[in-house]
C-alpha cells in the first residue's frame, strides 16, 4: 500500500520534471508499429527521411511551446513560417547563392521571425487582446505580406542551401546533427530563468505580476522565441523543399498545437516541456505513415488518421492527469 503510493508519487515527481515521458512511450510504440508494418521504415535512410520531413514541424511546435507555457497561443506560426520561407528564398535569389548571401538571408529570416513574434507579443500582451483571436488576425496580416513578397509558389532556393540540409557530414546525415543541436539547445533553455518565469506567468499572471515579474515583457519574450523558432522551422522547410511557397505553412499551425499537447504541455499553461512538443510533432508524422503502411484503404485514411490522432491526444492528456493525481 505505502509502496504503491510512494511509487505513484515518485512517478509524479519524475513526470513533473520530464512531462514528455508518456509521449516518449507513444513514440517508441509508433516506431515499432511502423517497423512491423514496413521493415524498410527502420533503415537509417528512412529515419533520415522522417527527420528531414518533420524537422520543420518539430521546430514550429517547440516554438509554440514557449507561448503555451504562459497560457497563450500563437495561431500565426504557420504564416510566419511561410513569410520567412518566401523572404529568404527571395533574398537568396536576388543576391545569388553565395555562402555569405545565404547567411545574410538566414539572419534576415531570424529577424523577420523575431519581428513577427514581437508584433504578436505587443498585440496579445501589450495591448491585452485575446491570444486566439488576435494571433488569428495577425496570421491573416502576415499571410498577406508573404503573398506580397512572393505572389506564387515556385522560386528555387540555391543548391548550397538544400544540399547542406539534405547532405551528410562524417557519413552522418546533417539533419541528425540539427536534431542534436536542438536537443542541446532545449536542455540549456530549460535551465534559463526565462523559462521558469514563463511557467510562473502561466500559473497565474496576477500572481506573477505581484511577485515582481514583468509579466508583459515576459509574455512578449515568449512570442519572440516562438517567432524565432518559426523562422528556424522555415529554414528546415526551405532545406527540404528547396523553394519558396507563400502558402506552405498555413496547414501546419493546428498541427503545432496538437504536437504541443501530445508532448505533455498543458494549454492552460504553467507546465510542460518543449522537448515533448518535438516528440509530439514526430508522433503526428508517424501516425500518418502508419496508417499507410498498415494498408488502410485510401478513402478511410483520413478518418483513420484523424481518429488515431484524437485517441492519442486523449490518451496523452489522460496519462499526464493520472500520474499527476
Amino acid at each position, binding site marked *: 500500500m505505502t509502496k504503491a503510493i510512494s511509487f505513484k508519487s515518485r512517478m509524479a515527481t519524475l513526470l513533473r520534471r520530464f512531462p514528455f515521458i508518456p509521449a516518449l512511450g507513444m513514440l517508441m510504440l509508433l516506431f515499432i508499429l511502423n517497423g512491423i508494418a514496413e521493415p524498410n521504415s527502420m533503415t537509417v535512410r528512412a529515419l533520415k527521411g522522417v527527420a528531414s520531413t518533420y524537422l520543420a514541424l518539430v521546430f514550429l511546435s517547440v516554438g509554440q511551446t514557449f507561448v503555451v507555457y504562459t497560457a497563450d497561443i500563437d495561431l500565426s506560426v504557420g504564416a510566419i513560417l511561410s513569410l520567412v520561407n518566401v523572404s529568404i528564398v527571395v533574398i537568396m535569389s536576388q543576391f545569388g547563392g553565395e555562402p555569405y548571401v545565404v547567411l545574410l538571408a538566414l539572419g534576415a529570416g531570424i529577424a523577420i521571425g523575431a519581428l513577427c513574434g514581437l508584433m504578436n507579443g505587443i*498585440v496579445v500582451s501589450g*495591448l*491585452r*487582446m*485575446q491570444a*486566439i*483571436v*488576435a494571433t*488569428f*488576425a*495577425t*496570421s*491573416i*496580416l*502576415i*499571410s*498577406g*505580406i508573404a*503573398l*506580397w513578397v512572393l*505572389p506564387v509558389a515556385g522560386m528555387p532556393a540555391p543548391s548550397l542551401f538544400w544540399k547542406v540540409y539534405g547532405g551528410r557530414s562524417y557519413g552522418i546525415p546533417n539533419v541528425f546533427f540539427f536534431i542534436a543541436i536542438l536537443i542541446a539547445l532545449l536542455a540549456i533553455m530549460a535551465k534559463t530563468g526565462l523559462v521558469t518565469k514563463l511557467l510562473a506567468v502561466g500559473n497565474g*499572471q*496576477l500572481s506573477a*505580476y505581484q511577485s515582481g515579474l514583468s*509579466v*508583459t515583457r515576459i509574455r512578449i519574450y515568449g512570442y519572440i522565441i516562438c517567432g524565432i523558432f518559426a523562422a528556424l522551422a522555415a529554414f528546415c522547410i526551405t532545406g527540404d523543399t528547396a523553394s519558396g511557397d507563400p502558402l506552405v505553412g498555413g496547414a501546419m499551425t*493546428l498541427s503545432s*498545437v*496538437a504536437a504541443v*499537447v501530445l508532448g505533455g504541455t*498543458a*494549454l*492552460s499553461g504553467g507546465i510542460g516541456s518543449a522537448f515533448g512538443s518535438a516528440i509530439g510533432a514526430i508522433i503526428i508524422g508517424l501516425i500518418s505513415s502508419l496508417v499507410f503502411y498498415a494498408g488502410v484503404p485510401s*478513402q*478511410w*485514411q*483520413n*478518418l*483513420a*488518421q*484523424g*481518429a488515431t*490522432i*484524437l485517441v492519442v*491526444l*486523449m490518451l496523452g*492528456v*489522460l496519462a499526464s*492527469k493520472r500520474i499527476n493525481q
Partner: protein
Amino acid sequence: MTIMQHSNPQESRSALFVYLKNPLLVAFILIVLLLTAGEALSPGFASMEQILRLLIVAALLGIVAAGQNLVILGGREGIDLSVGGVVSLSAVLAGNVMDGSNANIIAAILVCLAAGGLVGLINGVGVTIFGIPPLVMTLGMLGVLQGLLVVIRQGIPSGLAAPALANFVSKPFLFNLPGIIWLWAAVGLLMAFLLMRTSLGHKIYAIGSNENAAYMAGVPVRLIRIMLFALSSMFAALAGICILGYSGTSFANVGDSYMLSSIIAVVLGGTPLSGGKGGYTGTMAGAFLLILMQSILTTLSIGESGRQVVFGLTLLVLLLFYGRSKALRG
C-alpha cells in the same frame, strides 16, 4: 465597503467610456460606419437588397456562432473548433437525404440534428468526463469529421437541396424577408430568453464564471457542459442545412471557413473567450460586422495580398475595442 452616492472624480469622466465599452453599441456604430464607407466606395452597396443579402450570409454564420457562443460562455476554456466539420457533414448529409425533394426535408433535418447532436455529445463527454481541454478535443474531432466526410461521400448519390429549402433561404418568405432571416431572429430570441430568463441560463453563466462554486451549489456542471457542446454541434448542423439551401448543392469543404469566423463573431460581439459573461445579441452584431467587412474588402481592387493585410489590420483594430483583458495593475 462604500457605494458612493455622490459622484467621485472618475465617474463623470468615464460616462462616455462606459458607452464605448458596450460592445453592442460599438458594433452598431461600426456597422453604420462601414455601410457608409461601402456606399461611398461603390454607390449601391448600402442598398436594401444588398443589406438583405449580407444578412442572409450573416445569418448562416450567426447560427453557427450561436452554438459557439454557448460553449464559450460555459467557460473552462470552452471553444468548439469542430463546428466547421459539423457544418460540412450536415450539408452533405442533408443533401444526400433530401435528394432535391421537398418530401424529404423533415427527415433530412432530423438526421442532421441527430448527427450533430451525437458529435457534440462526444465532444462534451471527452471534455467533461475525460477532462480533455476543449480546444484539443474539438480540434481532434475536426480531423475525424474531415475523414468521415471522405468516407460518406463514397458513391452516395445527389447532394441537391430541396426547392423549398432553397426558397426558404433566399426568397422572400414573410413581410418580404427570407425565411432564414426569420429563423435567425428566432434563434436570437430563443438565445436571449434562454440566457436571461431561465434557470439554465443562470447555470450556464455560473459554470462559466466559477465552475467549482457552481458545482458546490448543486449545479450539474458536467451535464450542462455536455449539453452546451451538443447544442453547439446542433446549431452548426442547422446552419449546415441552411447553407445547403443557400448554395443549392452540397460540396465537401463548405464548412471550413466557419471554424475561426464563428469565434471571431462571438468575440466581436463582446463575449470574451474566458467565458461567464457576454451574450448572443452582441454575437449577432459581430457576425454581421464580420460579413460586412469581408464584403467591402471583396469589392476593393487591391489584390489579394492587399486585402489580407487590410483585413488583418482591421480585425486587430476592432479587437482593440473588445474583450481586452484587464490591466494587471488595478
